[in-house]
C-alpha cells in the first residue's frame, strides 16, 4: 500500500469512529430527553409531599377535615399507598415494577389513627376526624376533552373491530358497537390494512376505563375522552380511574394499532349491552 493510500485509509477509520461517537452522543441525548419527558419523578415527589403534609396538618386539628383532592398533573397515572406509620408511597400505576415508589414520612398524631389504603383514582377524598384519618377513592368525573376539529375526519371511514376474548357476550358486544357505527361514510373492514379507526376490546382488571394507543396521541386522547365521558354519563358510580397509555411493545395488538390512523384498545371489566351504547355515542361525537 502506498503512503498516501495508507493515510487516506487511517483518515477514513478516524472519521468513522468520530461519526459513531457523535451518533452515540446524539442518541443518548435524545433517549435522555425522551425519558425525562415520560418521567414522573417530579410529580411523585410533589404529590407524596403535598398529600403527606395535608394529612399531617389535618391530624393536628381537633375538628373534622373533609377535602376533595384531584390528582391531575402527571404525565402517567399515579397511585399511592398510605400506611399507618405515617408514610406515603407514590408510584406509577402502569410501570410500578420498573420505577421505585417515592416515599415521604410525615409527622402523625398519637390520637388519630391513619387507615391504611391504596388510592389509584384521579379523585379522592381526605377525611380526618380526631379519631381517624382516611383516604378513599372517589368516582371518576367527566373531563373537558381536548379541542380538535375531528369532524373533517368523517370521509369514508374504514373501521376495524376486534377483541381478545372468545366469549359470546363479547362477540355480541362487538357486533352491537359495529352495527351502531355503520352509517353513511363509515364502513367496517375485515382486514387490518389501510384502516382509519380501530377499536379493540380487551378485559380490564378493575373498575376503571383503560385505553391504549400507539400513535396520533392528540386524536386518540380526544376519542378516548369522549368515550369515557359517555360511559360516565351512563354509569356515574361505576368507575374510579381512567388511563390513556401507550400500548406496550410486546402487546399482540401493537401491530394492529400501528396500521390504523387512529386506534384504541379499550379495557373494561364488564361488557354488557348497556356499555355498547355510550361507546357508539362517544365515537359518533368524535366524528361530529
Amino acid at each position: 500500500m502506498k503512503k498516501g493510500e495508507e493515510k487516506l485509509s487511517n483518515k477514513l477509520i478516524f472519521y468513522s469512529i468520530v461519526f459513531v461517537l457523535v451518533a452515540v452522543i446524539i442518541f443518548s441525548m435524545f433517549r435522555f430527553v425522551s425519558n425525562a419527558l415520560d418521567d414522573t419523578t417530579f410529580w411523585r415527589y410533589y404529590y407524596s409531599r403535598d398529600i403527606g403534609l395535608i394529612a399531617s396538618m389535618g391530624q393536628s386539628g381537633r375538628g373534622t377535615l373533609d377535602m376533595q383532592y384531584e390528582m391531575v398533573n402527571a404525565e402517567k397515572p399515579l397511585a399511592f399507598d398510605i400506611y399507618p406509620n405515617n408514610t406515603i408511597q407514590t408510584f406509577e400505576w402502569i410501570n410500578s415494577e420498573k420505577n421505585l415508589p417515592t416515599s415521604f414520612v410525615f409527622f402523625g398524631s398519637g390520637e388519630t389513627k391513619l387507615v391504611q389504603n391504596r388510592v389509584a383514582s384521579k379523585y379522592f377524598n381526605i377525611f380526618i376526624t380526631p379519631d381517624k384519618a382516611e383516604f378513599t377513592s372517589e368516582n371518576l368525573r367527566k373531563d373537558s376533552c381536548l379541542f380538535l376539529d375531528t369532524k373533517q375526519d368523517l370521509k369514508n371511514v374504514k373501521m376495524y373491530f376486534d377483541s381478545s376474548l372468545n366469549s359470546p357476550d363479547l362477540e355480541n358486544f362487538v357486533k352491537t358497537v359495529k352495527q351502531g357505527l355503520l352509517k353513511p361514510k363509515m364502513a367496517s373492514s375485515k382486514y387490518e390494512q389501510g384502516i382509519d379507526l380501530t377499536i379493540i376490546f380487551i378485559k380490564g382488571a378493575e373498575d376503571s376505563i383503560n385505553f391504549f394507543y400507539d400513535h396520533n396521541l392528540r386524536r386518540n386522547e380526544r376519542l378516548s375522552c369522549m368515550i369515557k365521558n359517555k360511559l360516565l354519563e351512563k354509569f356515574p358510580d361505576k368507575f374510579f380511574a381512567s388511563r390513556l397509555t401507550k400500548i406496550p411493545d410486546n402487546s399482540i395488538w401493537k401491530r394492529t394499532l400501528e396500521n390504523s390512523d387512529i386506534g384504541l384498545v379499550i379495557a373494561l371489566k364488564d361488557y354488557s349491552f348497556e356499555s355498547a351504547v355510550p361507546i357508539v355515542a362517544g365515537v359518533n361525537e368524535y366524528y361530529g
Partner: protein
Amino acid sequence: MSTMDDASEGESKWILEFIPKLIFLGIAITVIVVFTSLLIVNNVNTSNLEMEVFFNKLMYSSGGISYHDVDTGRIYMGVIDPSKLDHNYLIQSLPYEGKRFAAKITVYHQSVYYPNESSYLNLKPFTALDGPSGADTLDRKFTSAYVNENGQVVDNTPVEIEIMRSRT
C-alpha cells in the same frame, strides 16, 4: 512532496485536537442535561414547611406541649404544660418514623429532645453546612406562661424551640 507531507501532518494534528473537544462537548452536554433535570426535580423544597408544620403541631395540637383541658377540649395557647415536656410523651403524641428531624425544646432552663438527644447532637454540626449535605434550622424564641412543679403559674418564662431537618 514535502508540501504534501506538511499538509497531511497539519490535518492529522487537527484531527488529534478534535478528539478532546468532542469528548468535552459530550461531557458538557451531559452535565447540563443532568443538572437541569435535577434542578427541576428538586424544585419542590418543603423543608421549611415541614419544620413549620412540626412547630405548629407542637404548639397548637392536643399532642403538643401547650396545656390541654380534656374536659372542654380547649388548648390554652401560651401556657406550657410541664407534664408534656417529656421525650417519651412527645414521641407517642407526635409519632415520626423518619430520620431527618431533631428538635430541642427549652422551657425555663429545662430541655427536652425530640426524638432523642443523640439525634439532635448528630444533626447539629450539619446545620453549619451549605448544600445537600447540610441541615435546615428553624429557631423560635418567645415568652410563655409556665406551670411549675409547685403548681404556680410563672409568667414571662423564656421558651426556645430549635428544629432541624437534614436536606438529604
